């Protein structure tokens, strides 16, 4: 029957592999070094030239970090924030993207144009008035304050709209309507399932956007318990100066969820982006 053809790697392909492997290792080397530093004793961190791997690995940095700082609370804050932001963004983008794509009513195009225009405007530009908005609502130092800036994503609406235009033919929807389906039914039972891929990609995008947000959480949260990971680490200081070992241990601990999440979600991300209009 059919046998697997033996794939021989040519010389040029091997060269490419060597180059890429070196490059890949180089890309993650800083992170590896960070984790290695977390295991070093305070003296070893200060020696010159620095060692790549600790000579006498210790765990006390981790112990100190976990007991002295609210690191786990920060991680929890970041997770809650990211999850809720993702949900909000996915829902609003799905709905707005669908309606703006398929419903030709007066003013909808204009609305979309505004969304597109404001998509480019960086968050930092309107961060300050938004801060005062949060203050007047009394939601500073809370999850809601964090969310205020991350409830919608212009790019998300754009993405879904593109997808709806390209992959959901009008005939599908009309057929369902003729059969007597209500609009909500059409949305939930036809549109959403068809948008699974792009929604998953958007979810991953939104999640990492909230996970790595820096300026906004920095401004909104002033209480140690309300920090997200990024802010907590940036302001990490427990003595006169910054203890490198503790900081590395905290950073290493924080990298764990990042890396794990990514390793699991990579496929979704790639597939999602592939299914967007970028292929055009």
């Amino acid at each position, binding site marked *: 029957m059919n046998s697997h053809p033996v794939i021989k790697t040519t010389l040029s392909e091997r060269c490419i592999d060597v180059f890429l492997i070196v490059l890949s290792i180089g890309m993650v080397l800083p992170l590896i070094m960070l984790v290695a530093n977390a295991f070093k004793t305070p003296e070893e961190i*200060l020696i010159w030239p620095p060692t790549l791997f600790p000579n006498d690995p210790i765990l006390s940095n981790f112990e100190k970090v976990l007991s002295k700082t609210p690191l786990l609370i920060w991680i929890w804050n970041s997770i809650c924030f990211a999850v809720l932001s993702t949900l909000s963004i996915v829902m609003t983008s799905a709905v707005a993207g669908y309606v703006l794509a398929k419903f030709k009513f007066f003013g909808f195009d204009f609305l979309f144009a505004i969304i597109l225009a404001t998509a480019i405007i960086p968050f930092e530009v309107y961060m300050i008035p938004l*801060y005062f908005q949060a*203050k*007047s609502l*009394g939601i*500073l*130092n809370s999850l809601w304050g964090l969310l205020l800036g991350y409830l919608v994503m212009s790019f998300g609406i754009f993405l879904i709209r593109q997808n709806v235009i390209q992959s959901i033919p009008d005939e599908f929807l009309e057929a369902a309507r003729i059969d007597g389906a209500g609009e909500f039914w059409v949305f939930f039972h036809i549109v959403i399932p068809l948008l699974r891929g792009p929604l998953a990609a958007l979810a991953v995008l939104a999640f990492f956007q909230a996970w790595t947000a820096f300026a906004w959480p920095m*401004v909104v949260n*002033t*209480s*140690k*318990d309300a920090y997200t990971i990024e802010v907590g680490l940036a*302001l990490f*200081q*427990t*003595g*006169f*100066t910054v203890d490198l070992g503790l900081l590395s241990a905290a950073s290493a601990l924080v990298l764990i969820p990042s890396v794990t999440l990514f390793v699991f979600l990579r496929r979704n991300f790639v597939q999602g982006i592939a299914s967007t209009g970028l292929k055009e």
Partner: protein
Amino acid sequence: MKISSIGRRQFASFALSSPLHKLLAAAGLTLLAGVAPAQAQKISIWSGYPEMAPFYQRVADQLKAKNPSLQFSIEAIPLREHEKRVALALSSGSAGALVIEMAPPTANRYLSNNLLVKAPGNVAGFVTDTKNYAPFFIQGASSGGGVFGVPLFRGQGALFYNTDMFKAAGLSKPPATMEEFSTYAEKLTKRDASGKPTVSGWSMRLSGGGQGIAEKFWINMFQYSGNLLTQGADGKWRVTVANEAGRKTLKQYLVNVHKLKVVTPEMPADADAFERGQTAMFIRESWVIGDIAQKAPKLNYATAPLPRGTIGLPTNLYVSAKGAEADASWTFAMAANEPDNLIWLLKNVGWLPNRQNVDYSPVIKSNPGFSGFVNYPKDHAFFSLPSIDPIEEILTRVASKLTAAFPKAGLADDDKAIAALLVEIENEGNAILNREGLLGK
């Protein structure tokens, strides 16, 4: 809204209007009386110096042992972020009960906008008692005739020097004049084969953002009898660097970096460098003593007062709270000034407590590092940062111009350019003062 913050007097006067109301009032008051004390009071202590956290925790633990319904949350973050969070919290009024550690210049704008609470009688009496604090500190804690803060500690500059290195260079005492600083620095610098300094003779503050550079420049200028900002008879201010003192100071920086080559911007600097033996001497505040004890306990060093005088930057505890929580907050501020606690502060953290009728001698005896900070001549002069709104902005801009100037080798010989730069700095600062209506004649 917490029950405890409803004024009981208000409730009572309302209750006097009718018999039914009286009954309700009686019931209500009993309810209040029963509920309020049992409710936990949560007070946050905000500090801009993470090393102070253990001290505040100690005070909090003492108070909690006496009154378990009190809950204190100590939040000490780096100074810049602390200042920002205070600005955001006080302007929104939504941060709950706070004890805020601040220097008077920072507190000034909040005071002028009535965002901080006036101290109650007993606290005010304690602060204004000259047995407890020198007039300088009482002034710093007061505003418009009332007391708003409780003094706690101060940042004061003195010289730290490595006694081993001094001995090796044949120097038996610390430099007594600014000119001696330069000659000493040259003798103390260790160089490699190509002449580049490997151990700086004098670690001058050449880089690092913010206003620190301006502050250190001012300290040096003060030794030449100059001041970065001067207050006129009309109570208003001017930037005053374009003069003999300013020129001498700037020139000294430039000469040390480019001519004598005792220090460069890239060399390790500050407390870290001193602790690792990478510099022979530097000027800093007393917290370094605690740092050295922790990180380089075997270092042989001593401290000495500066030639003419130094900066004294007091830090006070202010309160933003209402009702019973305000009381608890002031109790905290007072407790922090208990003699035992202040002695603990000096010994374990290193910042200098402001209260004077406390016997610090055991600490000073056991750690001679403090001598440069407490054993100064009677005519030692002090200056502080003006308590005006734009002070940080002005200092930041001065720092920015200085940072740009320090690496310029050509500037060291160019007296005209130095003078011109100082005039530029003056103009920039005075423009800001003018903008705020604070520019004097």
